[in-house]
């Protein structure tokens, strides 16, 4: 299982990230102090560190310097949004930089992306009898290959990574189409319809009234 260390001086934010990453199947540990974080990093091994910059004890930059030689991927999560802060963080060797306030979906996507880069992520996702090989871009249902368009594939990956989470129309649109959502959701609906049809997920991919869609999977 992938172990993620969350370092943020705000307990609510630690818990928030912890809850969401745990639900996505990661094993999380939280710490609110820079020095304690360094101790933990030394003692245990982690696959990814989510790091705030303004920390009591030792700043995120200090911890970054300490972590770099270990080769553990790091994502900065901070309220510092200015370009020079971001550049500083990335120059220090961080793999990504997320500015507060952030969307949980975006956090998950970035975590996924960084882990994939380090070949630590689950490259094969499953939901029921559907298997998705993200790297090979191959989708099979009950052993039979299903042909999907780019957008349909993106939607499917997003749904499987966020099982049982109601994904809002704007979130889906912004993440898959990478454009700002202006309320015209017919394109999105159309793609979801075709995805349902191709996978036989008419019931599984449920519409959530006035919200969007949710991939339902019994636990």
């Amino acid at each position, binding site marked *: 299982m992938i172990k993620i260390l969350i370092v943020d*001086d*705000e307990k*609510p*934010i630690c*818990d*928030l990230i912890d*809850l*969401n990453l745990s*639900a996505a199947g990661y094993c999380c540990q939280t710490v*609110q*102090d820079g020095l304690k974080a360094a101790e933990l990093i030394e003692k245990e091994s982690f696959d990814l560190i989510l790091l705030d910059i*303004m920390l*009591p004890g030792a700043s995120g930059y200090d911890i970054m310097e300490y972590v770099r030689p270990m080769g553990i991927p790091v994502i900065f999560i901070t*309220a*510092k*949004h200015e370009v020079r802060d971001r550049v500083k963080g990335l120059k220090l060797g961080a793999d990504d930089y997320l500015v*507060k*306030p*952030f*969307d*949980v979906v975006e956090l998950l996507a970035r975590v996924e992306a960084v882990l994939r880069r380090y070949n630590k992520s689950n490259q094969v996702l499953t939901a029921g009898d559907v298997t998705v090989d993200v790297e090979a871009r191959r989708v099979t249902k009950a052993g039979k290959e299903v042909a999907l368009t780019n957008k349909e594939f993106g939607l499917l990956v997003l749904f499987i990574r966020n099982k*049982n*989470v*109601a*994904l*809002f129309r704007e979130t889906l649109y912004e993440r898959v189409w990478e454009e700002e959502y202006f309320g015209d959701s017919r394109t999105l609906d159309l793609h979801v319809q075709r995805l349902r049809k191709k996978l036989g997920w008419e019931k599984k991919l449920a519409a959530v009234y006035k*919200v969007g869609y*949710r991939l339902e999977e019994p636990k």
Partner: protein
Amino acid sequence: MKFSLKLLLSTVMVLAAALGFTGYFFVNYVFETSLSREARQALDENSILRFAFETAALNVPTKYDVLQDHTLEQIASNLETSGQRTGRLLRLSGEEKNVLYASEGFEADSALLLQAEENVRSWQVIFLSGRYYVQTVSGLHAMDRMLYLETLRDVSEVFEERELGFVVYRRVTVLMLALGACIMHFIASVLTRPIRQLKKATKRMAAGEYGYRAKRLSADELGQLTRDFNRMAQALEENMKELEAQVQDREDFVAAFAHELKTPLTSIIGYADMLRSRRLDEEKSFLSANYIYTEGKRLEAMSLRLLDIIVTKRQKVEFQTVSVQLLFDYLQEMFTAREDMEFLFSCEEAMVSMEANLIKTVLINLVDNACKASEEHGRVAVTGKREDAGYRFAVQDHGVGIEREEISKITKAFYMVDKSRARSKNGAGLGLALCVEILALHGSRLKIESETGKGSRFSFVLPMAEREAV
């Protein structure tokens, strides 16, 4: 043209004129004196010759009553040859200015002779075949004849000396000018050094090096100018630094504000998003909702505090005369409800001029801070005491204390010494900033004394009410 060059050129010009004039005057003066001396000698010679002539004429045998022309010639010739070694030249003329005898080489015209009078000796300088002579003339009586005796005296040497004087003097002048120019160049460059220093300083400052100062090299007007310039630069630099510090403060404030705003927002947005998009179990739902509530409260507290500060900054306060005892009673009542701390209130009664509600806020903030810094059941002492300058309020705790380098920062908005500790006690880092604003309205300042591990003491002085002071 450079100032030093101007100075150099004008000095050299004045020097040249002065040297030229003095040289000409001096050489000419020497020449004039030499010439008049020569003329005097020539006249003396003329007198001697006349005397000799008259004597010789007396010695002529008085065969005749009248001196014959050839006799005169004879005498003149004798006189001439007697002074042969000196190259004596003379000319003898009769009463009608007719030449009776002339030495060989006596080629002067008769202009002087024609003007000559009987009893007057006169002289003039003439130029004859490349040489200068002093020509003299005087009348003489020999027997009954009226005669005129002229002499020539070679004075070329005097003229040559004058020429030589001019030549030497020209050389000396040129040499002196060159030497003077060198010295003046040196002097000018020394004198204009302060100007060059100033020029350099202005250039460096214009290029952005505001800390550069011109070196002060003299105590004269230029030195004073340099000093004044440096003072001006100093004042400007200080002003600029102050402005920069203000801008920096404002930037820091905005950055801190953004950070303090985003942190609770992240939680609120994140948990709300979880609530709306996930089916959470009851425990998690409660946790999320609670976080949204507490973080929302935190935002509220922060915005209210900020508002307080902004309002306080703009406020025009009206001061009242307040009894310290009443104020302490109020505080005591407010804090005795807290059982986790030990409070000690003691004051000297006095009437103090203040805006009571604002000062209450200050004291409550300070006591709150003292509680936050202390262990459970720690002791917090609030005291009031008369002093020479006014009335001093002090809040003392025996808590963690503040590190020396932190003391100057703790009154800045959003600054928290121990963030996680402050946060857990619901602080926004704005309390002391508010206190400082309120005290500034009262013309007072917050005094902070602290030692790590031993505790801190925050105090301020307010003026006594007027009727008390009298």
